[in-house]
């Protein structure tokens, strides 16, 4: 009887989880072994053909590479910046609430709105960046039209958007640190850098792990800005894996290939999450 009661309690959550997470994942995996069907050509089993096409697809390789650089460029920068801002606004400052709010503002804005703002920052000649540059006599830059500049330009925007969000977690963690530690450190004559390196930072490790996992997921999940800023261009120079999946699914209507790409994304994210937990877990001190 107790068993039945327990299962009944689980049912609502289980239905949602199976209906919206596990079943779609399994169906995606299954779809990736079939060809894309239309009304005139029903889907048929093609084995690993879609995966072979994927291995030979230069755009796939490019977006995967872009995503790697995008992750490498945004994750450490956003985390370092978040920590720096948190340490800064955790002190006694004039108008502290205002400063905190200012740092947090980019987080509250929807990504589409942010991208529209930054589109005008980056626009040659009439954009904010070029107008500022012109004050110092710099020429106009085609920020989003140059394949070498476009990915760093989008990374900068994402760091700006994300750092404030991660700052909130660091700030909460910092405020839960017992003040006695700092007092003890001061009595022992520890310098501030030494205290940060040996006490504060290790104690913040659980937060860092949490933020790191989130930042990694976000670096694969955040593609809204591409719709506004670049549409993945020029020549896929700023395209990311999830945006490519969108294009394949809804612009090319190749649902089977989109499913194949999605499987790759899922495997990649699962592997990253497992690696992070296994490798970093050991260095995290939970209290």
């Amino acid at each position, binding site marked *: 009887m107790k068993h039945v009661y327990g299962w009944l309690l689980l049912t609502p959550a289980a239905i949602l989880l199976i209906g919206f997470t596990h079943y779609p994942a399994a169906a995606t995996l299954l779809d990736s072994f079939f060809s894309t069907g*239309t*009304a*005139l050509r029903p889907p048929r089993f093609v084995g690993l053909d879609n995966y072979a096409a994927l291995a030979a697809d230069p*755009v796939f390789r490019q977006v995967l590479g872009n995503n790697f650089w995008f992750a490498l460029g945004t994750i450490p920068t956003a985390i370092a910046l978040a920590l720096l801002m948190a340490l800064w606004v955790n002190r006694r400052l004039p108008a502290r609430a205002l400063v905190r709010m200012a740092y947090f503002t980019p987080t509250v804005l929807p990504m589409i709105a942010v991208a529209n703002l930054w*589109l*005008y920052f980056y*626009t*040659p*000649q*009439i*954009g904010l960046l070029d107008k500022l540059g*012109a004050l110092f*006599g*710099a*020429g*106009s830059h*085609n920020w*989003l*039209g*140059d*394949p070498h500049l476009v990915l760093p330009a989008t990374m900068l925007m994402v760091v700006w958007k994300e750092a404030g969000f991660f700052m909130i977690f660091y700030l909460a963690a910092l405020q839960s640190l017992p003040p006695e530690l700092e007092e003890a450190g001061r009595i022992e004559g520890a310098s501030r850098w030494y205290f940060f390196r040996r006490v504060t930072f290790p104690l913040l490790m659980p937060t860092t792990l949490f933020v790191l996992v989130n930042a990694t997921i976000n670096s694969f999940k955040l593609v809204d800005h591409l719709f*506004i800023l*670049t*549409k993945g*261009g*020029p*020549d*896929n*120079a700023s395209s990311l894996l999830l945006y490519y999946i969108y*294009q394949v699914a*809804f*612009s*090319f*209507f*190749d649902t089977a290939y989109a499913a194949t790409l999605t499987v790759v994304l899922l495997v990649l994210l699962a592997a990253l999450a497992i690696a992070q937990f296994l490798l970093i877990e050991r260095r995290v001190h939970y209290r």
Partner: protein
Amino acid sequence: MKRILAVLILSLCAAAPARADTTLTFYYPIAVGGPLTKVIDGYARQFESENPGIRVNPIYAGNYDDARIKALAALKAGQSAPLSVLFSIDLYELLEQDAILAWDEVAASADDKAWLKAFYPALMLNGQYKGKTYGIPFQRSTIVLYWNKDAFKEAGLDPDKAPATWNEMVQMGRKLVKKDAQGNIVRWGVEVPSTGYAYWMFQAFARENGQDLMNRDGNRTNYAHPDVIAALQYWRDLGAKYKVMPEGTVEWGTLRQAFTEGKTAMMWHTTGNLTAVRDTAKFPFGVAMLPASKQRGSPTGGGNFYLFKKTTPEERKAALAFVKWMTAPERAADWSMATGYVATRPDAYATPKLKEYAAGFPQAIVARDQFQYATPELSTFQTGRVRKLLDDAIQASLTGQKQPAEALKAAQAEAERLLKPYR
């Protein structure tokens, strides 16, 4: 007596649903709350009052991509709308999904058949397949050249004369480029957008150089023809060699503002921007046909009415009545004035309203005059992929990553592979 009355009332009530209204739902590609929703809603109400028995229910479905996704998703779920305005180049995709019906099959009367022939032939090309008409032109545009007359005056050029050839555009462009004291460029000669609809802009260059990019059956592309390669070389040279256009890609979305703020003296853009440019430009501006190389040329673009297969005979009849009403000369004229889209049929330009409008604003009829040189918008089977191949090749050339010949030949080879199964 009371009883008889009751029976009468009951039977009246029962009879009423028998002649119930036909509801005509249609997807319309625009964001909810955009200024055009008011115009469309107004048309729907006016049509209803003139045609009792038909209720029109427009669903605003976002941009062209969103509208297509929604229409096809509804189709898969078994509740498709009978009628839709979708991108004119979605034709092959819709055919392959076996989703749409040729208008020839419902347009039975002589009057209906005459109606099918009333539009500009150039606008019908994107809507026809194997001799049947699937798309009725509604909101259609084309590319034109906008020029800033003040900038022309300042550069010592005739402000009323736009470049007529590729050479002239370069020569004039060179005079129009303006630099500040440090040698930084503050005004470009000409800009052609290459982010949003690069393939569309490129169709104009290719057509002007004498080539179309695909065949009429939608199963062959012509990306690697020497004249097509030369066309891309010219586009690239505007930035790389003649220095009259910024190097790299030019953003579609912000170009109009760059023009209205005087940062470029000329731009190639859709006629769909005409009303917005008129409302924001603080200087006199002109609109001209695109310059010629071997000939003039510009692709058409925009949205068509499609009729879906999963429809009842009543819905088909209602859809025909509604689309005929929506594309009637007076409406086409009214719609063109409200939006800047071209009026889709010659007799619309003969209406007093549009005649008067064009007399005061001659820029509005340039697009019509350009129709004689028009080519249909790039559309093939596997259209999303085939189009993106070209987009990528163009952007790779404009940013100097690849040579035009190399990029276009690779795109052509890949397009061949995709289109072979459709021959």
